[in-house]
């Protein structure tokens, strides 16, 4: 695949309010840098993330989508992330089945105490998506930026 010079991917991160969003805040508090490409959307729980949102992001020009939630067993709502895990596993598997690059999607568990993990995860994910280049397989040409 032809990779543009200085390709800056658009990355949408869905973070659950109780763990991962707080983890993202902590990486801010600790001044742990991660790329500006990552933009966070706050959701109450990772189980709020509908597959439609993920597809919508790719449609509108995202190059990578990452979902972050509480570690299994630590969900504020006790079971939300267990449902997330099944749903998102199956969805990612389906995207893979359709030939969408695996590294464009990720699910990570980040606790409120894991500011460093949050920053490192975002760093790594951004690099992985950069290496893939722009999203072409699941884009909507009408939404492509020139």
């Amino acid at each position, binding site marked *: 695949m032809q990779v543009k010079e200085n390709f800056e991917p*658009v990355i*949408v991160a869905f973070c659950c*309010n109780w763990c991962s*969003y*707080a983890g*993202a*805040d*902590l*990486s*801010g*508090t600790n*001044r*742990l*840098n*991660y790329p*500006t490409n990552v*933009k*966070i*959307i*706050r*959701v*109450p*729980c990772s*189980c*709020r*993330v*509908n*597959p*439609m*949102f993920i597809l*919508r*992001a790719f449609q*509108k*020009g*995202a190059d990578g989508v990452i979902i972050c939630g509480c570690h299994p067993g*630590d969900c*504020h*709502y*006790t*079971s*939300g992330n267990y*449902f997330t895990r099944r*749903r998102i596993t199956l969805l990612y598997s389906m995207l893979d089945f359709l030939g969408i690059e695996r590294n464009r999607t990720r699910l990570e568990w980040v606790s409120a105490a894991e500011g460093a993990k949050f*920053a490192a995860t975002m760093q790594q994910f951004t690099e992985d998506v950069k290496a893939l280049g722009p999203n072409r397989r699941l884009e909507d040409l009408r*939404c492509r930026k020139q």
Partner: protein
Amino acid sequence: MQRIGVFVCHCGTNIAATVDVKAVAEALGHEPGVVISQDYQYMCSESGQELVKNAIKEQKLTGVVICSCSPRMHENTFRKAAASAGLNPYLVEIANIREQCSWIHKDIATATEKAIILGRTAVAKVHLNTPLNSMESPVVKRALVIGGGIAGIQTALDIAEAGFDVDIVEKQPTIGGKMAQIDKTFPTLDCAACILTPKMVEASQNERITIHSFSEVADVKGFVGNFTVKIKKKARFVDETKCTGCGLCTEKCPMKKVPNEFNMGLDNRSAIYIPFAQAVPKVATIDPNYCMMLKTGKCGVCSKVCSAGAIDYKQQDTFIEQQYGAIVVATGFNPINLDKYDEFAYNQCPDVVTSLELERLMNAAGPNGGTLLRPSDKTHPHTIVFVQCVGSRCDDEKGKPYCSKICCMYTAKHAMLIREKYPDTEVYVFYIDVRTPGKNFDEFYRRAVEQYNVHYIKGMVGKVTPKSDGKIDVQASDLLANEQLHINADMVVLAAAIEPDKTARPLATMLTTQMDTNDFFTEAHPKLRPVESATAGIFLSGACQGPKDIPETVAQASAAAAKAIGLLCKNSITCNPCVAHSDELMCNGCSSCEKVCPYGAITYIDKEFRMPDRTTKVRRVASVNPAVCQGCGACTVACPSGAMDLSGFSNSQIMAEVDAICK
């Protein structure tokens, strides 16, 4: 037409140093619907809030976006400010340009660009925000205390004292817990029963306290202020209301070979039993594992001798359901099982006992009537070795990683009591560290050494070997003398680690509270909220939260009671309005949402629909109880038709955010 105000905070230099706040305000001013876009030094300050309030009034704003620190910091501040200016608080959105932008990026150009996108995303969302009104949910003025040990009793007494009804659920036939088994208490050496039993009686006589002994919590539904708890009253085969506690049945019962759990199995009881003389309620219980009548249908002696006619062999488990506003967990602890510690010969030698067993051996109501005798041959022990940290501070799968906290002190107590009563007895204590923080604790330990001449030896016991002459060889190291010792002992006492009660884990699941890896309940904040769980309305009392001695347990029990009382004093609590709701016209009634709801907030109703052809059709549709829903959103994704949506985080709002980020 939306009229949105954008307010960009400098946060001193926290934001302004890396984000060009003026440029952000300028750029966001051009977003659709934005009528005013300003920046200010400290938006959360009095004057900053004033700025927002004035703009709401003057500009007749329909939505507010604050570009500032994390919503976890000041979302509530700005919601309150908006409300005071007459704008629904849920029409405020926060763009997090500090924690998620200025603090993590260094380059002003890219940080500013990102801040604009974050602001734009919040503007896009606020376009779709709707006014939400918090519901008030009533508080049931009744508390449940799970566990009837000293923690549960103290909590119940304090809550009752404040004028609220309290139920205690205790799984044993009597309340009292571990403290009832203890002989004397440190550091005062007063008798445990003498200070505990009056409290037990007080609890039983308090008209605001209901004791459900021999009962378990079977199910918990609901939420803070309004829990519905199903309590299983296990069949004790004795009618509690009729039994007078005379004890004749326990005397006459022919089955007398039942290990007595109250005396740690050191003696036997009958199949029908009252755990101990001061039991509350003082009611007999039949042990179905041993009762001949229940097992074979042949006997019935207790029924014949009971003049009150209280024996009921046909009794079944019954369930009662009760509403509570607050729940206090006081499930306590147990010593760990020592089966895996072969080196201490606990399972091989009856004269190797745990500290709790020693309590019973020394207790006047214990198997030997208070005379310390070896369990094996009922002779006086002359050399006793105490081993500290058995299973505590372990980094392996056999033990526990934590310090059990109480062992140092009770061992000093045991050693001291033995030396006091039997001065001819040599007492050795093998310790790794002696930990005695606490009022008068170290003085107590020093007394054991200096006044009572207890031999404290720094080192650990490596091997305990029962010998053919009835003695016990204790092989240990004396680290300070740098030698290996062999002590010819008569008895060995193991300070077994303590662990949370096994019933705590399933209970935590029912209560949706969190536990740590050791199954201790996790407090909401380790320093600032030590007696609350993270789940609203659930409080923690005593050793279920971590190892504690009696004074600490009582202190925490009263603290938990105070927190529960604070909740019960309220007439109602404000609910989070960001809850799920179902569009009845689209709902298929398929039950997918109900299955993923952790709170049981979704029920189904048959609803009549008027069809276009003027006929009516009855369909099954989901209905969300907004007071029970906590707003996780699991149902919204389970719903295939998209009928289920979440206020405050609706499908369209999140998609608008996605669009704004990707634009």
